[in-house]
């Protein structure tokens, strides 16, 4: 806690440009540092440390609203309170499903049982109301355009208008910027262009407000060198410079070089992690020199010769320091943690979740319905629309990890009809959704699950004052 706080102060001291308007404001004066008695009023006595203590207990909206009280409160809230209460607990997940029949992607937001709903829906036109008119007409947001989500910010790419969009669902603010000019290797430029236009290029978002208020977008171009397919271009956009920079990375020798990669990244400590169907984990370092490290995935003893993107398992970060890898194996879910020791990284098996145990697991009291405690099986019995025996059979066979909760030490599990949140430390189990939620395609395995926790930082602080008209 203390470490995190200090970090945020040093950030503000290092000339954090956005708050120049209120510079010269002192750092927190401490209660026991002789501040007592400066004034006769209660306010004079109630030092900043206690003010911060009180402000941090406010609901999010009220806290941000009180930035209007004074310049000093603006500083206290932006620079001390918000970093202190971040990251906010997981609000919900976005679950994307591929609909084979229509060759399209469907998506839905599932809120955590004790959280409040999003104020704006993810895929309604309402969300795009603020777009300038010509863009608004061309841009119908679809789940396939949602590329990534990282610490409360969402990344979209819209092929029709050829623009990236960063959206903060909490503050309802967004920025648009164009992709880099198509470069890459000349021989297949036309092919790449076609691919871009039809599907968009997979891109990932790198944002961690604990470390920096700037974000980066990494665009993984399709083009390949025919001589050395492991060498490929990479474009990185930084909100600090507002420019794309092209890099070339080598992801390694066969079989990594030609194996398809999973279209999902996890950002942790200045690096993006991405799974490869060659059973490797790729680590893209974004700090200083941009390079790629390749790590072998742990052997769960159940690898088949043909691994597809769908049965690779999932990776996720936890509490800003751990990287997990989880995989479904018969009726169990195995979870490894990446440990760094002596310059080498290795996997350590941390948890083994048995699906039959989970069926009889006691649900935490926050779970809907809240009123009484019962186990998961009894809970399912009360969800009338399920045929329990059939459900249990499917549950045991198909339970699989789909994501990790970055704000706590929990894994998100999916089985047909049901999505679960399971804490690895205290074994707390919650049902995020079940068949009664009337979720379309609930029995289809998710293509991608993105986690969402609120981000209270206004765009101004993210390096953007307003939407820039000239991007169109």
């Amino acid at each position, binding site marked *: 806690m203390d470490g995190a706080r200090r970090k945020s102060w040093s950030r503000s001291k290092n000339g954090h440009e956005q708050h120049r308007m209120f510079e010269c404001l002192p750092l927190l004066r401490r209660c026991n540092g002789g501040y007592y008695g400066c004034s006769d009023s209660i*306010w004079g006595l109630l030092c900043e440390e*206690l003010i911060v203590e009180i402000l941090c207990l406010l609901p999010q909206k009220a806290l941000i609203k009180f930035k209007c*009280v004074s*310049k*000093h409160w603006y500083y206290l809230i932006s620079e001390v309170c918000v970093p202190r209460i971040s990251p906010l607990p997981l609000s919900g997940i976005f679950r994307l499903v591929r609909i084979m029949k229509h060759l399209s992607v469907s998506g839905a937001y599932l809120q955590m049982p004790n959280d409040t709903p999003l104020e704006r829906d993810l895929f309604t036109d309402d969300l795009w109301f603020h777009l300038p008119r010509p863009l608004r007409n061309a841009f119908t947001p679809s789940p396939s355009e949602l590329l990534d989500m990282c610490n409360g910010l969402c990344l979209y790419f819209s092929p029709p208008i050829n623009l990236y969009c960063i959206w903060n669902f909490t*503050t309802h603010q967004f920025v648009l910027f164009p992709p880099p000019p198509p470069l890459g290797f000349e021989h297949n430029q036309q092919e790449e262009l076609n691919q871009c236009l039809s599907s968009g290029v997979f891109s990932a978002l790198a944002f961690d407000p604990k470390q920096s208020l700037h974000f980066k977008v990494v665009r993984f171009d399709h083009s390949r060198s025919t001589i050395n397919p492991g060498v490929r271009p990479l474009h990185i956009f930084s909100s600090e410079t507002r420019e794309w920079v092209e890099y070339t990375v080598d992801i390694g020798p066969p079989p990594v070089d030609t194996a398809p990669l999973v279209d999902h990244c996890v950002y942790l400590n200045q690096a993006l992690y991405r799974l490869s169907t060659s059973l490797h984990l790729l680590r893209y370092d974004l700090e200083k020199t941009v390079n790629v490290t390749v790590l072998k995935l742990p052997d769960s003893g159940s690898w088949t010769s043909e691994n597809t993107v769908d049965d690779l398992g999932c990776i996720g970060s936890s509490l800003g320091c751990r990287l997990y890898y989880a995989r479904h194996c018969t009726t169990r879910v195995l979870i490894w943690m990446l440990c760094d020791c002596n310059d080498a990284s290795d996997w350590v098996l941390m948890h083994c979740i048995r699906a039959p145990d989970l069926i009889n697991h006691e649900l935490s009291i926050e779970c809907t319905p809240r009123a009484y405690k019962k186990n998961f099986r009894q809970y399912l019995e009360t969800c009338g629309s399920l045929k329990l025996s059939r459900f249990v059979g499917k549950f045991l066979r198909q339970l699989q990890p789909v994501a990790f909760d970055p704000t706590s030490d929990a894994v998100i599990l999916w089985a047909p009809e049901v999505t679960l949140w399971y804490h690895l430390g205290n074994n707390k189990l919650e049902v995020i959704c079940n068949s009664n939620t009337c979720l379309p395609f609930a029995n289809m395995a998710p293509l991608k699950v993105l986690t969402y926790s609120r981000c209270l930082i206004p765009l101004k602080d993210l390096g953007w004052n307003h939407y820039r008209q000239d991007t169109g």
Partner: protein
Amino acid sequence: MASSIENNNEKLTLKSSDGEEFLVEKHVALQSTLLQNMLDSDCSSADVIPLPKIDARTLALVLGYCKKHADASSSKQGELNSFDSEFLKDMDMGALFNLVLAANFMEIKGLLDIAAQKIADTIKDKPHQEVREIFHVENDYTPEEEAAVREENRWAFEGFP
């Protein structure tokens, strides 16, 4: 009273800023980390401990809280919770601020937490102009600056005046 503390009924005297003296049983005083540290070091319990930053009215409230929490066993958590909410009920802002200051000075974490939460709950739905008055904060924004901050954080004002 619980039997376990019968052989430990030493008393100590606390003196408020306005000179009033309070005789407190030691196990009650131990709710305060500050007093606990003083007793652990060389301070003799025969001395009068002055608390120059806390007035008699606030100190009486603090000691009432400490007594209740020192005497109740941990199994009565529900009872303590209802005592806590009853304890702060109808307390005005001035008294709450004094309580927060006293709890912070005497290092009584439980009391600090509930009093700070009570203040937060009271101000959360109030307009920021009113919060300025409560906390005696001078508005140093120009009208334009205030409008700019409001615009920048417009989402937080939805549903509020």
